[in-house]
């Protein structure tokens, strides 16, 4: 027990030490740098596995989780403690984080072309351009090789800190470290304007969520007087929080704090409407995409909200609370909405980015309807197969870059799926692993992990009667299968559509080995959570996952066992297989982006159904022309820019329309001069006056600050009297 606790404390440290070592000492030596980074990740991995093994073999583990705490600050008579805790939830998260992180570290060695010569024209801040060798152009090593490993080391430190921490404050610390690292890594190739902007966008967008999250933490601390999970998730505390009224009428303290914390998740896990940063984050190197989108950062958001589940359900007594309703609605919207966009993407990584958003929406929606175990299950399986898919897509891009260098035609985008095709023969290992990952994502029945977790969510939604959520998610699942198959077909099947694709090459072993390892988990991990009542094979394997995770919740939260029902099972079979089949049928003969065979396939469908003209037009304009235009112009600009950024404009328009009504009822001059010109003049007048405060003179600022302090002091005195 003592040893286990010590190891838990030590798990986050090796990557941090690796970061410092690389930054301070070994940054000139590439081999030493990646050895240290991988070694650090490996040590963390061993520690995590040891802890996980202990968690599995300890009796009554759920009632007595590992961990201890030290006093950090004595705030009056209230010692503020920081510490570590491993309960079933964090144990399982630690398990998959450690594996994926280690795999990604190893993969990065190959991805950044270790062992290749230095590029001829490579500059720091740009992707490597290749080097001339023996008359050929070959891949060249990343110019900031060591720096990359330092960054991902720090990133891993942030994630491990977040997972092992036993309170919200250190969790938030790890959370913010990851925020910083994602900024650094998305903008890793800072010479590219797009990468630079993407990094800024990611940082700013997540910051919006983080501010609300910090508010939530502060509010929770004010009301509960502690941030430790153990102390908050006691029955008395939860019921106290659930019954105390918050500032917002109709919402308990637990509800408000939960929603504020959830907004943090919305930012971190890219939920609607703060999802905008995630697709852009694809500007970073592919291991970073895997890191951010699968193993760590986005998972962290969902992990946090799952961790806060007792708070979210507080006061519901089995019914949905306000906070949970918010979760369910946001999650379902995100799942469907992102899936529709993903159908319309050509960039191999962007499809995966949208699919990530969509899958995270599944988890959030699952939690929103109270399907706690299903959410955790999907979080874990998703981490495995999405890391696999990202690394696989990186491998594909890498192979394509090889082809690009061979032909020397740099205009060909190695990430565009329409430039690929037929890669299954060139890159067999990548193909098979990618296929496994894709099937897992689609929920291919019985053998893949994704099927079991997604099925459990659907079953839960159906069994508890949340039909809106159920159907939304079912449609989203169908679309998921469809675009996944579309991606696989376009990338690997058929014939090579460009010369570059013909010259693509299988990637080195450092890249394919992680793929194979992750592929094993993408299949095998589903079998730990087979429902007991599943027809045929249910009960052969114990539903170990459910027992393990469900007991991790405080004992006062009860679960009802779900009775088996055929409808969700058939639904998920139909959507998965139907989606895959449709995708393959539609895209098996695709040639170029302009000349998409989808037209021919949709032709008969169009004639059979009424009102299809409109859809054909839409597909013609939006799918066959660069599909990205659709998502960018309509969804980005209409949904995001107009609806979200343009929210103020809407308010102004609303005011304007109200004003028009009033104008008819009241005198024109009154409205014009008093409300129109008058407020404008007032605003301008205020602006001019207030502008003088911004003098740049520190002492003037201080005087204002003191004035504020004095007012506070006066108020304090007044309350005392």
């Amino acid at each position, binding site marked *: 027990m003592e040893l286990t606790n010590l190891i838990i404390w030590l798990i986050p440290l090796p990557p941090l030490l690796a970061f410092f070592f690389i930054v301070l000492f070994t940054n000139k030596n590439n081999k030493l740098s990646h050895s240290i980074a991988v070694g650090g990740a490996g040590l963390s991995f061993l520690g995590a596995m040891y802890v996980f093994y202990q968690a599995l073999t300890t009796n009554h583990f759920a009632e007595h989780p590992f961990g201890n705490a030290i006093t950090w600050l004595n705030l009056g008579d209230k010692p503020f403690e920081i510490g570590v805790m491993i309960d079933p939830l964090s144990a399982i998260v630690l398990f998959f984080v450690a594996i994926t992180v280690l795999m990604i570290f190893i993969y990065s060695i190959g991805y950044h072309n270790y062992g290749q010569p230095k590029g001829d024209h490579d500059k720091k801040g740009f992707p490597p351009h290749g080097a001339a060798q023996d008359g050929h152009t070959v891949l060249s090593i990343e110019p900031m090789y060591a720096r990359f490993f330092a960054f991902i080391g720090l990133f891993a430190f942030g994630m491990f800190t977040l997972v092992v921490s036993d309170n919200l404050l250190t969790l938030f610390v790890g959370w913010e470290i990851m925020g910083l690292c994602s900024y650094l890594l998305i903008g890793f190739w800072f010479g590219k304007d797009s990468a630079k902007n993407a990094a800024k966008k990611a940082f700013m967008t997540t910051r919006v969520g983080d501010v609300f999250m910090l508010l939530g933490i502060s509010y929770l601390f004010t009301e509960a007087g502690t941030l430790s999970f153990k102390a908050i998730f006691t029955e008395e505390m939860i019921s106290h929080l659930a019954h105390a009224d918050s500032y917002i009428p109709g919402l308990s303290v637990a509800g408000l704090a939960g929603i504020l914390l959830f907004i943090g998740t919305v930012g971190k896990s890219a939920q609607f409407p703060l999802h905008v940063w995630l697709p852009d984050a694809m500007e970073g190197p592919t291991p970073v995409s895997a890191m951010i989108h699968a193993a760590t950062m986005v998972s962290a958001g969902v992990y946090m909200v799952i961790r806060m589940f007792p708070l979210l359900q507080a006061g519901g007594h089995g019914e949905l609370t306000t906070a949970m309703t918010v979760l369910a609605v946001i999650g379902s919207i995100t799942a469907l909405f992102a899936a529709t966009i993903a159908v319309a993407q050509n960039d191999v990584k962007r499809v995966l980015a949208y699919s990530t958003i969509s899958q995270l929406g599944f988890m959030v929606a699952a939690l929103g309807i109270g399907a706690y175990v299903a959410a955790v299950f999907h979080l874990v399986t998703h981490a495995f197969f999405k890391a696999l898919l990202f690394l696989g897509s990186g491998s594909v891009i890498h192979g394509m870059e090889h082809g690009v260098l061979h032909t020397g035609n740099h205009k060909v985008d190695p990430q565009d799926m329409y430039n690929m095709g037929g890669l299954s023969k060139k890159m067999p290992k990548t193909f098979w692993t990618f296929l496994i990952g894709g099937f897992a994502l689609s929920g291919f029945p019985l053998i893949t992990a994704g099927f079991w977790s997604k099925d459990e969510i659907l079953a839960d939604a159906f069994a508890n009667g949340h039909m809106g959520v159920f159907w939304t998610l079912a449609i989203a699942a169908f679309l998921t299968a469809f675009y996944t198959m579309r991606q696989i077909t376009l990338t690997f099947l058929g014939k090579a559509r460009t010369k570059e694709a013909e010259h693509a090459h299988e990637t080195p072993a450092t890249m394919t080995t992680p793929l194979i390892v992750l592929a094993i988990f993408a299949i095998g991990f589903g079998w730990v959570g087979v429902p007991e009542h599943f027809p045929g094979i249910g009960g052969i394997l114990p539903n170990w996952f459910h027992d393990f995770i469900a007991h991790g919740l405080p004992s006062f939260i009860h679960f009802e066992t779900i009775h088996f029902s055929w409808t969700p099972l058939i639904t998920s079979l139909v959507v998965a297989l139907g989606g895959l089949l449709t995708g393959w049928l539609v895209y098996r003969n695709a040639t170029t982006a302009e000349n998409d065979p989808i037209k021919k396939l949709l032709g008969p469908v169009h004639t059979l159904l009424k009102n299809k003209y409109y859809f054909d037009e839409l597909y013609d304009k939006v799918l066959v022309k660069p599909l990205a235009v659709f998502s960018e112009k309509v969804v980005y600009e209409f949904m995001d820019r107009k609806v979200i950024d343009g929210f103020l404009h809407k308010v102004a328009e609303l005011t304007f329309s109200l004003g028009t009504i009033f104008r008819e009822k009241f005198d024109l001059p009154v409205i014009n001069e008093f409300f129109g010109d008058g407020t404008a003049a007032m605003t301008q007048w205020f602006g001019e006056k207030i502008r003088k405060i911004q*003098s740049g*003179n520190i*002492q003037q600022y201080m005087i204002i600050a003191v004035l504020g302090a004095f007012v506070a002091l006066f108020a304090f005195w007044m309350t005392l009297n």
Partner: protein
Amino acid sequence: MIPLSNYLIVAAGLFSIGLYAVLARKNAIMILMGIELMLNAVNINLVAFWRYLTPENVSGQVFAAMVFVVAAAEVAVGIALIMTVYRRRDTVSADEINLMKW
């Protein structure tokens, strides 16, 4: 015997004088010195509270020692900054150091 109030009032006075130096003097070094006065006023309070309210518990002295640490660090960095500004801009007047406005 000296009541606690005497110490507190003197400390409050010292704090206000320091505050005035911080708010009103032009010279940046004077501002630093004003901050020192304010920190000292706080320290008097900490030690007085320790002696009068909880003499059996050393927390007050520990906190005062921490304030010393902060004061030393603050002056070292502050003076380094002032020297740098002086070298660059040839002034240590606080109201001429206002480039952050733009």
